[in-house]
């Protein structure tokens, strides 16, 4: 075994080094280990940063940066122009019953406080409101009248069939007449898609289904009514 010969002088100096290093380290205020304010663990209900709120609660379905998620993009300027705050707040707070959009308000069993929902809405509008006038002449978010499904079939044939195909078979885009699909989404969502489109994944808005022929509010209601009439009765939509 090798051994280092030490006399008491070197032992003393070693001790001195250790204690010196100790005081130096302990005395220094900007050491890497010192917790910073940013590391302070926040209660989830105290988070106020929009990017965090959106990233932790919404990005999973509505996409990072508000687009290209599995559910409708939040950064779509047409969408943001037609939806009013009260409606947006209602959906976020209470979810969309019967669909995968969960309720987020604490009063509805979700994780977010009312203040956080306000912050989210304000953040969505501030981060993503696009060119003004994008939604000029767009049909309203809500339909005031019930649509007529037989006229809706006509609208489908002229405006949607080119992409979604005839007889529910799907075309370049997949079928929207599929019974399972229709059981999973609300009429309002259909209406939102038809008006605002999904620019992130290639869905035209109401103006561009057939170029030069924007859909009228009645036509939008009609085609939604027609699709809704194809939705199967509950068994398919209920738990087995």
């Amino acid at each position, binding site marked *: 075994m090798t051994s280092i010969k030490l006399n008491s002088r070197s032992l003393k100096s070693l001790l001195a080094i*250790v204690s010196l*290093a*100790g005081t130096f380290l*302990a005395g220094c205020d900007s*050491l890497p280990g010192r917790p910073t304010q940013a590391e302070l*663990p926040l209660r989830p209900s105290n988070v106020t940063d929009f990017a965090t709120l959106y990233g932790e*609660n919404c990005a999973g379905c509505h996409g990072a940066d508000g687009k290209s998620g*599995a*559910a409708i993009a939040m950064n779509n300027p047409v969408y943001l122009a037609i939806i009013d705050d009260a409606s947006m707040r209602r959906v976020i707070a209470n979810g969309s019953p019967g669909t995968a959009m969960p309720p987020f308000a604490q009063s509805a069993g979700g994780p977010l406080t009312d203040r956080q929902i306000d912050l989210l809405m304000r953040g969505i509008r501030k981060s993503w409101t696009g060119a003004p006038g994008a939604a000029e002449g767009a049909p309203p978010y809500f339909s005031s009248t019930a649509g007529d499904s037989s006229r809706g079939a006509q609208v489908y044939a002229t405006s949607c069939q080119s992409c979604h195909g005839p007889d529910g078979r799907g075309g370049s885009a997949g079928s929207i007449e599929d019974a399972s699909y229709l059981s999973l989404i609300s009429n309002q969502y259909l209406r939102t898609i038809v008006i605002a489109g999904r620019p992130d994944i290639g869905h035209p808005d109401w103006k561009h289904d057939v170029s030069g022929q924007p859909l009228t509010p009645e036509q939008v209601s009609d085609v939604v009514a027609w699709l809704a009439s194809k939705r199967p009765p509950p068994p*398919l939509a209920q738990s087995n």
Partner: protein
Amino acid sequence: MTDLLKSIGRWLDARLQLGQTIADVAAHPVPRSSASWWYIFGSATLVVFILQVVTGICLATVYTPAADRAWDSLIYLNYHQPLGWYLRALHGWGSNFMVALMFIHLLQVFLFGAYKFPRELTWVAGCVLLLCTLGMAFTGQVLRFDQNAYWGLGIGASIAGRTPIIGFKVVDLILGGPIIAGETLSRFFALHVFVIPALLIGFVGLHLYLVLRLGINEWPMPGRIVRRNSYIAEYQELVHKDGEPFMPHAAQKDLVFAGLIILSLLVVAAIAGPIGPNGQPDPTIIQTVPRPDFFFLWLFSLFALLPPWTETVLMLTGPVAVIGLLFALPFISGTGEKSWRRRPFSVVIVILAVTLVGTLTWLGTFSPWSPVMDAWSATPTPIDYVKGRTPLELQGAVLVQSKQCRNCHSLGGEGGMRGPALDDTATRLTRDQIVRQIIQGGGNMPAYGKNLTPAEVNALVAFLATMHPRGEPPARDSARPALPASSQ
């Protein structure tokens, strides 16, 4: 002045007889062979323990062992008390250092046969110290009373809770009630600052006393056999012929190493900072995976990897068997060869145990088997899996999020890893097999049957059936005609 001090010193020494005792200890002869760099880990563990006592006492002056205040008092230390964070860092990392050093010490004395006759009780006292130290580490982690503390307790309680018949009572005893609450914290505080430290100090005393009285283990030589009737005489002779006083020869190395350990502890604590606390221990807050401290990580991996049916059996019998074996060791093989060169079986055991615990720990640090609780709402579907999908498939992608499949399954490398990544699931499973897996579950996946509507199952399957890399065909059911990949 100095005369006065000296005479006080003499007066005290005449009554306490300390000077001579210390001189005896310092001068007691040890075999020259054991003044080696291999014999430094025990004393280093002791030094870190003393440091833990000092930092622990300082922490106890601020810490409040009440469920609603504990967490805040740690935040106070971290942010408001000058250098409070450093104190916490020293104590937290000190605990890690102590556990690590103690295990190295354990391996060393095991490999050097130091537990053999006549040092059986030294080993037994050491085993008690091992349990006490792990107990300190565990209770200390609970005192942090954050979400990781919940995890540690949860596992502890669930192990105890499986004991037949008395399981419920044991859980009650540990937690001070059926659930983790204020009572729990007071109990762990009492254990951490009174009960276990008292045991530790007592057994450290016994351990050291035995080491002094029986002499430190000599360097094992292959062929030098321990026999009950001759060993003590042989040892005496060795110490006489080839011994040297403990001070300074052997003690020097202990001192140097202890200095190095303290120095590295100071540096590590300064760089890595205090451990936790992370989120509040509020059961209504489900954040990302809570994790135990590193010395329990291997347990965490083990439970994640074990098939569920073995868990109860192993959790109950495993620890009892391992601890029992540890205590029984000197009585099973108390004599014979000491050298590791002649004890291949022991070497294999050490290598196996170290690799097993090491691998499990390593797996535990990087592979989160427990679900990632917020992946479903926080981790977007990869854009490639959204583009070009039909509306039904898109709903399937939404459902993979909303049904929290993502918490266990990753897509594009993100999400939980409890189940297999789903990116190429369609190359392995046919549609029918996917349906069966979702509805019936199996292999650690819950059965979703009752919780999904037929429409939801259709959408999920439609989406998952698209999960095959470009150019790699989906799995085919030979009993059915092939379908085009993205048809309904």
